[in-house]
Every structure is written in C-alpha cells, then in structure tokens.
C-alpha cells in the first residue's frame, strides 16, 4: 500500500526524537494542568456559590496581573521577546477583566464559568488529543490507509455536515425565539445589549442542565451567529476547490481511458488534493526581482477574495443563505467583475513579457464576456420580476414544468448563452486562452508558485461553482426537485423532513445540480480544443452580444403578451411551455440513458485488446 509521507518531517533522526519528546511533554503537561484547573474551579463554584464574585475577580482579574508582573523581568533578563510580550499581555487581560467586572453589572458567574471552567477544560482536551495523535502516529496513518476509511470519511463527512447545518439552524432559531420571548425578558440588560441574562436563561433549564445556558448565552447576539455562519460558508467554499480538482482529474482520466490519481490516501486517491495543497505550501516563495513586489503579493488576494464574497449572496436553500440581499444577483456579478483586476495586476507585476500578454488577453476576454452574461441573466430576472434569488427560486416550486428554463423559448436560448459566457468569464474550457501552453508558457501566473499559485486555482474553482450555482438558481429550478412541492409530505417530524430535504427542496438538490453543471464544464474542457484570441472576441462581440440582445427583446414581447389580457397568446404560451418541458424531459432521459449505456458496456467500448498484453512484450 502507499507510504504516507509527510514532507516537512525533520530529517535528522536524533533531533526528531528530541522534538517529539519535547512536544509530548508540553502537550501532556499543559493538558493535565488545564483540566485540573477547570475541575477545581467547578468544584469551588458549586461549593461556595455566594462568594463567586470575589473568587472570579481574584482569579480572573488580579492573578493574571501578578503573573504578568513576574514574567516581564524574567523575559527582559534572558532577552526573550516572547516572554516579555506574554507578560504584558497577561497584565492587559487582567486589567480588562478586572475593569469589566468592576464597572459593568456583568454577571460574575458568566465570566467565571466561561473563563475559568469551560475555557481550561476545552484547552486541556485539545492538548490531550494532540498528544494522543503524536504518540499513536503510526496507528493513525494505518487507520487512514485502511480500505474503507475513505468511504467512512466521505459518507461520515456528508452526514455530519448535514446534521451540523440542521442542528445549528435549529439552535439559532430556538435562541432567537427565546430572545424575544416576553415571559423571560426582565428589565436587567447585560452590557452588550443582549436582553437575556444567564439567570433568565437558566430558569428555562432545570438542575444539572444549567451549563447549557452558559453555552447558549453568547448566541443571542446577531454578530456571533453571523461569525459562526460565515465560518461554515468559508469551510464549504474551501472544500469545493479541493473536491472539484480531484474530481476533474478523475473525470479527465476516465475520458482519456486512464485511471487518474489512484495512489494517494487509499481508495481512488481521494487525498490527492490535500497532498497537492501540502506540497504547494512547502514550495519556495519566489518573487520576481524587478517586478513590483507588493503588487505581486497582493494580486492573488485580489483574485481570491471576490470569488469568496460572491458566496455571501448565493443561497443554497430558502433558509440556508448567509445574507439574502435584495440585489443578490447584481452583487455576485459585481464580485465576479472585480476578479479581472487581480489577474491584470498579477500579469503586470511579474514583469515578464509572456505574462503581460496573458494578462491583456485575459482582461479583454473577461471584461467583454461580462456583457452577454449580464444580458442573458436579464431574461429570467424579467420573467421572475425580482433580483432577490430566493424570490426567483420560489417561482420554480411546482415541478419540472415550472423551471424557468422551459418558461419560454427565449429563456432556453438565454440559458445556453449564459452558460457559454460564464465559461469564458471563468477562463474555462475552449476559452482558456491565458494558460494556452502552446504560445504563452502559462499566461499571467507563469511567475507564481507555491501557495500563491494555488490561491489563483482556488479563485477559479470557487468562481466556477458560483457561476454554475447562478445558472441552477435562475434556470434549473434552484433547490426544488423535479416533483412539485405540493406532493411533498408536510409534517415536520424527522422522516418527512428527510424525505422533503432529499427529494423536494433542500441544499442537497442544489449541490447535486451544481455538480452536474460542473461536470459539464469539466467534460467540455477535456474534449474541445482551444479557440484563438481573435475568434474569442469575434464570438463575443459579433455573435453572443447580438444574440443575447435579441433574446432580451423577444422575452420582453413574450412577457408583454403572456398575461390574462391576451387569452389566445396565454394558452399558446402554456402549450409552448409544455412542449419545452417535454424537450427538457427528453434531454434528461437521453443523458441518463447515455450514461447507463456507457457504464453497462464500458469494457466493450474501449475494446478488449487494450487490456491484456501480447506475449513476449
């Protein structure tokens, strides 16, 4: 089986053993002491509930200051900057907590429990697990390389993410409902404007469930909830590129009758992207000498941050959206527009003739393809009459027929125009001019290596997902399944919720559809050759732009007549809608049949001779 190698292991064996021993010492020692402190504090709080205020004040306020006063001379003596800064930091914390306790009517129990009980216990557990991993390093690696780990990790990962998302939504709703529940709401308001103190919260939980109140208390602030949700969104966004890169290499392999990555991390090389990530991080950090250093370092972030910001406004389901902006669509387009700057600056700052060529071509292509993309998006927006993505999605609730792509013929054409324009604006498939190896060595990111280079890749794959997400929401019935929502079981017990989530309406359907569109992008990339720069601009200015304008004009007239004022046209429109959805059904059945046919006789198609070798060779 494959050897799991970690690139940065210290080569000299003796040093490695010493380092390992020191790390174990620190982790175990720190973990145990923190655990003991936490338990002692818990015992003290239960033993003398009334002096809690003074104890907390002494421990959280005075003790750090004394510690700091002790550390500073020590640090100054043997000149270690870390110790001195640590000392000043401790003094600062001590003063802050002391001041807070003194000046504001903060409930000392809250600070005490948070700072002195939950904090140390959590830190202790973390350190102990870290020590455990280091001790059982070999076993952990064996575990990772077992045959079924990948499957368990994969399915376990998905199930846990779903549960986590569902649980966090449930808890947030519960706390919000508690926050404006008048019975609990007494006059005392805590300093940060939260109108629920621990005391009120704890009345809700009996006896030994009281610590839950402490955990729930910070959740009542909108800011904290947003931070947690943002953490989830960024987590998901960082998974997409990793997963899509691995998936692209597997699909490319299959198209080219080879296997793709098989070795890293066991089953089908699922850890290939992680390994690449680690390799890239360890790469040398090269900045071209004459180029503009600061701009060179800034460019990847100029490309990466907008791609991430686009996900703020991108809804995954009616409730799973970070900020349901009224101008969500415009905001996402704006973010994709700003990415161009990152590319231009990258090309300019690397001071190399080829990358300036690539940057210029890239800028022309992305800027010019934004116009047809915007125009093509106008059509579904007009039919739905709103820019808010969740409203547009609501229109496509009742089943396959109601999807906007089959709403009117212009919408269908707009879908294909949008999809081609979005390919060009993410520098994908036949339009990937900048990286056309044949003429320019690697376009604008020739000089980039290591982590900066992978940032550009992250931006590209995140933009790919955002763009196909938009296509799904606007044309292919967002997060609603092909069956109309009215058939869905309405109850809110677990069973019907799961059925509704899987079949009718839920983030999983949205991600599956986005996956399908991503697959099409990958499929196109590995079959079609590349277009020349003048053909790209010709296609945009003289073909796609007039086509999208005509489609917008056509759909305005269509909407003008397709209302009750013109019954004849309305019935005709219904017939057309039926026909188009029929076309849609035929297409999807054809694709499904094609896939099944391909899978069933996958050996015959490739030809048996390709497998066994001729004797003697």
């Amino acid at each position, binding site marked *: 089986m494959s050897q799991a190698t970690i690139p940065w292991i210290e080569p000299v064996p003796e040093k490695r053993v010493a380092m390992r021993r020191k790390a174990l010492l620190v982790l175990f020692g720190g973990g145990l002491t923190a655990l003991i402190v936490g338990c002692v504090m818990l015992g003290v709080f239960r033993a003398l509930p009334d002096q809690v205020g003074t104890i907390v004040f002494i421990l959280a306020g005075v003790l750090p200051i004394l510690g700091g006063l002790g550390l500073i001379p020590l640090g100054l003596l043997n000149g270690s900057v870390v110790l001195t800064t640590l000392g000043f930091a401790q003094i600062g914390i001590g003063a802050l907590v002391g001041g807070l306790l003194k000046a504001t009517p903060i409930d000392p129990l809250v600070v005490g429990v948070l700072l002195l009980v939950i904090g140390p216990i959590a830190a202790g557990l973390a350190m102990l697990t870290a020590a455990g991993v280091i001790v059982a390093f070999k076993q952990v690696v064996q575990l990772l390389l077992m045959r079924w780990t990948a499957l368990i990790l994969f399915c376990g990962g998905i199930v846990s993410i779903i549960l986590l998302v569902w649980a966090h939504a449930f808890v947030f709703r519960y706390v919000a409902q508690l926050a404006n529940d008048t019975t609990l709401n007494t006059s005392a308001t805590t300093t940060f404007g939260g109108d629920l103190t621990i005391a009120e919260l704890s009345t809700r939980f009996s006896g030994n469930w009281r610590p839950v109140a402490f955990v729930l208390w910070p959740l009542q602030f909108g800011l904290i909830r947003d931070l947690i949700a943002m953490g989830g969104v960024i987590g998901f966004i960082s998974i997409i590129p990793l997963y899509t890169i691995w998936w692209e290499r597997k699909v*490319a392999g299959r198209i*080219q009758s080879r296997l793709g990555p098989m070795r890293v991390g066991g089953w089908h090389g699922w850890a290939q992207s992680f390994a690449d990530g680690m390799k890239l991080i360890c790469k040398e950090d090269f900045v071209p000498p004459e180029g503009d250093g600061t701009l060179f370092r800034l460019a990847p972030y100029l490309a990466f941050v907008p791609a991430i910001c686009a996900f703020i406004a991108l809804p995954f389901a009616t409730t799973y959206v970070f900020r349901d902006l009224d101008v969500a669509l415009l905001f996402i387009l704006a973010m994709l527009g700003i990415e161009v700057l990152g590319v231009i600056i990258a090309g300019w700052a690397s001071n190399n003739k080829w990358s300036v060529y690539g940057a210029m071509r890239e800028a022309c292509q992305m800027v010019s393809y934004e116009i047809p993309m915007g125009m093509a998006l106008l059509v579904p927006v007009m039919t739905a009459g709103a820019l808010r993505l969740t409203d547009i999605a609501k229109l496509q609730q009742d089943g396959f027929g109601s999807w906007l792509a089959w709403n009117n013929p212009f919408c269908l054409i707009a879908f294909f125009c949008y999809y081609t324009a979005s390919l060009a604006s993410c520098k994908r498939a036949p339009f990937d001019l900048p990286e056309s190896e044949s003429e320019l060595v690697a376009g604008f990111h020739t000089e980039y290596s290591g982590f900066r280079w992978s940032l550009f890749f992250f931006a590209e794959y995140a933009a790919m997902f955002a763009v196909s997400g938009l296509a799904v929401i606007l044309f292919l019935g967002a997060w609603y399944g092909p069956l109309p929502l009215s058939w869905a079981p309405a109850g809110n017990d677990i069973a019907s919720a799961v059925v509704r989530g899987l079949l009718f309406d839920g983030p999983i359907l949205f991600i599956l559809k986005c996956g399908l569109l991503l697959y099409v992008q990958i499929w196109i990339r590995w079959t079609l050759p590349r277009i*020349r720069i003048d053909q790209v601009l010709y296609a945009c200015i003289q073909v796609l732009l007039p086509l999208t304008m005509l489609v917008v004009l056509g759909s305005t007239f269509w909407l003008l007549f397709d209302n009750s004022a013109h019954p004849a046209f309305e019935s005709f429109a219904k017939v057309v809608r039926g026909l188009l959805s029929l076309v849609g059904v035929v297409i999807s059945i054809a694709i499904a049949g094609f896939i099944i046919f391909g899978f069933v006789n996958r050996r015959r198609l490739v030809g048996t001779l390709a497998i066994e070798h001729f004797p*003697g*060779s």
Partner: protein
Amino acid sequence: MADTVLESRPDLNLDVVRDEIGDVRTEEMLVNMGPQHPSTHGVLRIVLRTDGEMVLEAVPHIGYLHRCAEKIGENVAPYQYIPYTDRMDYLAGMNNNLAFSLAIEALTGLEVPKRAQVIRVIFAEMNRIASHLVSMGAYGLDMGAFTPFLYAFRERERILDLFEASCGARLTYSYITIGGVTDDVPERFIDVCREYLDYFEPKIAEYNNLLSFNHIFVKRTANVGIISAEKAINWGLSGPSLRGSGVKWDLRKVHPDCGYDEYDFDIPVGQGLKGQLGDCWDRYFVRIQEMQQSVRIVRQALDKLAGTPGEYKHKSGKSVKLPKDEIYYEIEGARGQLGFFIQGDGSQIPYRVKARGPSYCNLSITNEVVKDCLLADVPAIIGSIDVVMGEVDR
C-alpha cells in the same frame, strides 16, 4: 525609456525625439519560441518578429540535435550504420532502416529473398501508422485538445508491443538490415496483427468525430498556412505535406520497390474539404486517410506472408563490398521522401554517406508560410508540417 530621454534633454523639440524613438505606437517584439517550448516538436528554436499578435518574420534556428551522423557514416561499415539511421527520424525507425538498406542493396546489387521483402513492407507500414498516430496526437495537443494525444498513444502501444515481440526494441529497432531482416517474425504474429488491425480500423473513424471534424479544430486549422502545389514542389516538400497541397505523388506508386506494386492501395490527397486546398487541415487529414491505406496494405501483406516460406535474410549481408560508384536512393518515409546518397570506394566502408531527411526540406518553408499570420497559428502550421528534429539536424 522614452521618459528618461525627455527628462535628460528638456530642450529637444518633440519631432526630433519622435523619430529617434521610432514608431512608438506598435513596438515590434522579438519573441523567442523554443528551443525548450512545449509546442515545437523537439529542440527547434524559432525567433519570431511580431507586431502585437501578427507575426512579421520567422527565423528557425536548427542544429541543437546535430550528432554528426554523416561523419560517422564515413568510418563505419554499412551493417554497423543501421542503428544510426534509427535515430534520425526516431518516430519511424523502420522506414529509415529500410531506406538505407535498399540504398546499399541498390549500390551492391544484392538480391533480397521474397519473404524478407514482405516482412519489410509489413513493418514499414506499421511504423508509418505509429508515426502518424503520434503526429495526430501532438497536433491535437497544439490545438489545446488534450484527449486525442492519449488515445493515439494507447493505439500506438499495441504496435510497439508487436515490434517488441519481433525485434526486442520499442523505438530504435535496427530490425531491417542489409539483405533482409535480422530475425523471422514470432509464430503467433500474423493472427495477433490481424486482430489488432480489426480493432484499430473503427478507431480511426472515432478520431475523426473527436478531432478532425470538431468545429473548433476546423476553425483553428482550415484556411491557415496555405501552401499551393507549385510552391510546395518549389520548396522541395514531400510526403503528407506535399499531398496535402493536392499533388498526388507517392514514391510507393511512382517508383515501387520491395514489392509495393503487388499490393493495391490508393494515395489520399488534400481536396480542400474544409477550407482552401493546401491548408493545415488538409495536411492533417491526409495523414489520417494514409493510416487507413496502410492498414489495407498490411492486411494484404499478412495474407502474402502466410504463403511465402523461405529465407528471411541474404547470407552475405554482413560482408558486402561497396563498388567504386555512387547511388542516390529514395523511398517514401512517414514524413516524406527519405533519401540516402552513398559513395563507395571499393572497400567495405563508404566514402561519403548523406541522408536527405524530408523534415529538413519541409521545415525550410516555415518562414514563407508563417509570414503575417497570428501568433497562435505558428504552432498550428509547424504541427501540420509534422517536423521531427532528429531528421532535420542528423
């Protein structure tokens, strides 16, 4: 640069400065493509004078793979020189060996047994298929389509297996020597080869759908790098590059040797299907059709081989004496007319050996064709001429 001039000499009036800096608007760039460039096949360096996207002039620099093959030819006996001919057009080793052996046999008047001639035809045509597969795959790569490259190499793998079974090598075979072939074919060779041909025939149609008739590929290659028939002949082009311009000329028909006249096959020629006659697409499509013709030849040769027992090599091949005379002998290699000029001086070692590689002449036309086309078309043109640097630099 322009501003420092102005800074340093503020008194200058601007008209003088303008001529000094020259035409400011479009500054011409000397762009260096190669010798380590992904799209130049092998170690070819081309200096392009470009104005923005347009290429004004292309100066190919060759000689990076020069291994003095001809100087060695003057010190080594003919049967020892065979391995050097492999390294010239390293994608079609068999055809090179065949050309040199036929030249020596024509010079010394050596008689080659019938069975050896049939085996030579089979291996030469199989090697032509392998070489055309590589050129098709590499051309798809130049255009940005990655997949045909791997399909081509999957098919080529089977041919190399067959070669390996018969002569032990996959690229530099030295299988065809003076007087015949080094060893007889293995026993199950004929039916495995037939099985392969039946498997390979439909695959060519598959490549056509995947690449040849792909709209983007046609857009990138049709009407690009057009070479008229007269120009092709004038610049000495030969092989698929010449036939792409509509000249139906193939040495296997014009001057048949080692039994080519006994097989019936026809010569594909460019018809200007997708664009003007003689554009990159025609040259590419001629190669695809030639593969089909080669399959026909090998099938007939296999049937003939089953029926011709006898020697596979002339006995005195090794110790042949070169008469005090000269010969210039050409055969139809994979990339064009591959010729050898041999001057004997009575001893066993030739006095002068000169190899005329088809890629050498095909490459000399690049400057003519590449003038004022787009930068992105240069790899398209070079790919369609299908150059192998081993043969150009010798």
